[in-house]
């Protein structure tokens, strides 16, 4: 019997971990990383692209739920039914994937202890993109839990599963159809898992700015996280607004493909319709797929219908899913889906009451507000209106970058004191390692 085939008509699919396991020893970033790699197993061989997003509109919403969670598939405590996912389609739950929060979810554990989250996630995402259960012992789509499948970075789908998914979506260009890789059945423990990015181990450079006493060139929400750009550096905050590291990272070491002589950026935003990231500097812009620049860039900002001369700020407004560009006392509204500037623009920025001219940048955030940044201060505007909330501006350093009022208020150090501070900084670094503790 041939079951009804359901598949996604689009090839770019967004995902989000909406709720995390509540009593698991797995950190949020580890869970996200395991989901990323479990999806990558499928996108490595098919022309599907998965992008992590922040909002409520993700195609694949991932939840850790207990007992009856109102979807017709109640969980039953430890053991028994451990997870499920909804097949592609038009229904609101299509693609959504649920894990039983009563299971002891593990990573790098032996067979006997707990439920390997990566192995189960690969199976469930198979459902989320249209596969049904099969009886073949070696298939990841066999309904029974068969223990860990090894290192997520090295996992290779069984050939039968590849063929089934190729029948739905075709083959990714880079994949050889004839290659039948041998399945490694070793008991190797997974290697260190990290989020898919470079994390610089270089010491802080002497030209690195002081996050507590600076204005920022650009601020953007990317994949639900906040990025503060200054000069050749950036700081990153998790979606819970926790600073990943006190040390900034170097832009060029993370965002691969920007010119090496680029000493700063003007504005950055994540595009709504395809989740690509757009960087602006002067008259030029670059489009990134994840953290790699696309071919054919830079291009001129006149592509957007913007006048040459650069922009101050760019952000996608959650209210209308349109992109807003700011320059001096003017702003424009761009329709990403139709790739054209909305008629009637530019308008005066005075329509955004309480927001200053000549912004540094602006960004949406997951709390239903847009934030505008200028100098050392920021303004909050709820998505339902065009007016800054009462009580703003507030301090960027204090509220976003983990600085005390005293640090943030301190004047910029003179050259001599700056040198002394560096010496002190270096001395302290010999004793204290500043770490990124996200997982």
């Amino acid at each position: 019997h041939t079951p009804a085939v359901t598949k996604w008509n689009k090839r770019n699919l967004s995902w989000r971990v909406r709720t995390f396991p509540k009593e698991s020893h797995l950190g949020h970033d580890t869970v996200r990383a395991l989901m990323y790699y479990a999806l990558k197993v499928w996108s490595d061989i098919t022309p599907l692209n998965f992008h992590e997003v922040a909002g409520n509109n993700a195609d694949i919403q991932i939840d850790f739920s207990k007992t009856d969670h109102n979807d017709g598939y109640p969980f039953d405590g430890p053991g028994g039914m451990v997870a499920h996912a909804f097949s592609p389609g038009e229904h609101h739950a299509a693609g959504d994937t649920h894990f039983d929060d009563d299971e002891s979810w593990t990573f790098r554990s032996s067979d006997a202890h707990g439920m390997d989250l990566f192995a189960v996630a690969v199976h469930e995402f198979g459902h989320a993109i249209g596969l049904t259960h099969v009886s073949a012992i070696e298939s990841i789509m066999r309904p029974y839990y068969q223990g860990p499948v090894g290192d997520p970075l090295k996992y290779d789908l069984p050939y039968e599963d590849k063929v089934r998914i190729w029948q739905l979506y075709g083959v990714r260009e880079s994949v050889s159809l004839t290659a039948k890789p041998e399945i490694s059945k070793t008991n190797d423990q997974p290697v260190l898992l990290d989020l898919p990015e470079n994390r610089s181990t270089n010491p802080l450079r002497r030209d690195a700015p002081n996050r507590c006493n600076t204005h920022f060139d650009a601020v953007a929400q990317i994949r639900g996280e906040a990025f503060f750009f200054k000069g050749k550096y950036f700081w990153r905050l998790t979606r819970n607004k926790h600073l990943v590291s006190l040390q900034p990272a170097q832009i060029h070491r993370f965002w691969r493909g920007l010119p090496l002589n680029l000493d700063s950026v003007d504005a950055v935003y994540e595009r709504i319709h395809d989740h690509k990231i757009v960087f602006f500097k002067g008259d030029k812009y670059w489009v990134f797929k994840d953290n790699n620049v696309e071919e054919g860039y830079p291009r001129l900002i006149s592509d957007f219908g913007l006048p040459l001369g650069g922009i101050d700020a760019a952000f996608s407004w959650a209210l209308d899913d349109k992109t807003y560009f700011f320059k001096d006392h003017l702003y424009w509204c761009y329709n990403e889906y139709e790739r054209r500037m909305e008629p009637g623009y530019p308008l005066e920025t005075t329509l955004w009451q309480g927001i200053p001219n000549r912004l540094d940048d602006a960004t949406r955030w997951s709390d239903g507000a847009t934030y505008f940044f200028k100098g050392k201060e920021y303004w909050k505007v709820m998505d339902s209106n065009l007016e800054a909330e009462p009580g703003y501006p507030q301090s960027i350093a204090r509220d976003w970058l983990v600085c005390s009022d005293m640090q943030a208020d301190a004047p910029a150090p003179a050259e001599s004191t700056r040198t002394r501070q560096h010496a002190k900084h270096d001395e302290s670094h010999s004793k204290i390692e500043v770490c990124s503790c996200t997982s």
Partner: protein
Amino acid sequence: APADDDDASSGADWLTRFGYLLPPDPNTGQLQTQEELAKAIMTMQQFGGLEATGILDEATLKLMKTPRCSLPDLLQSEARTLR
């Protein structure tokens, strides 16, 4: 060894949940026949890689207790065809 009555009852629930057995008709209250039950067990055993005996033996019960995905193995239409 064949299962006792409790195992048979929970086995029928399991087979229904995962698509091997159609749920009893709520209008007529009709129960599955022994023959239907045995056929469903055989299909489940084949799908699970066990010897297809049609008997709810220990190996079958063990497989039923193995942690698994909540989704059915067969669609309702497939179970109906079996019936």
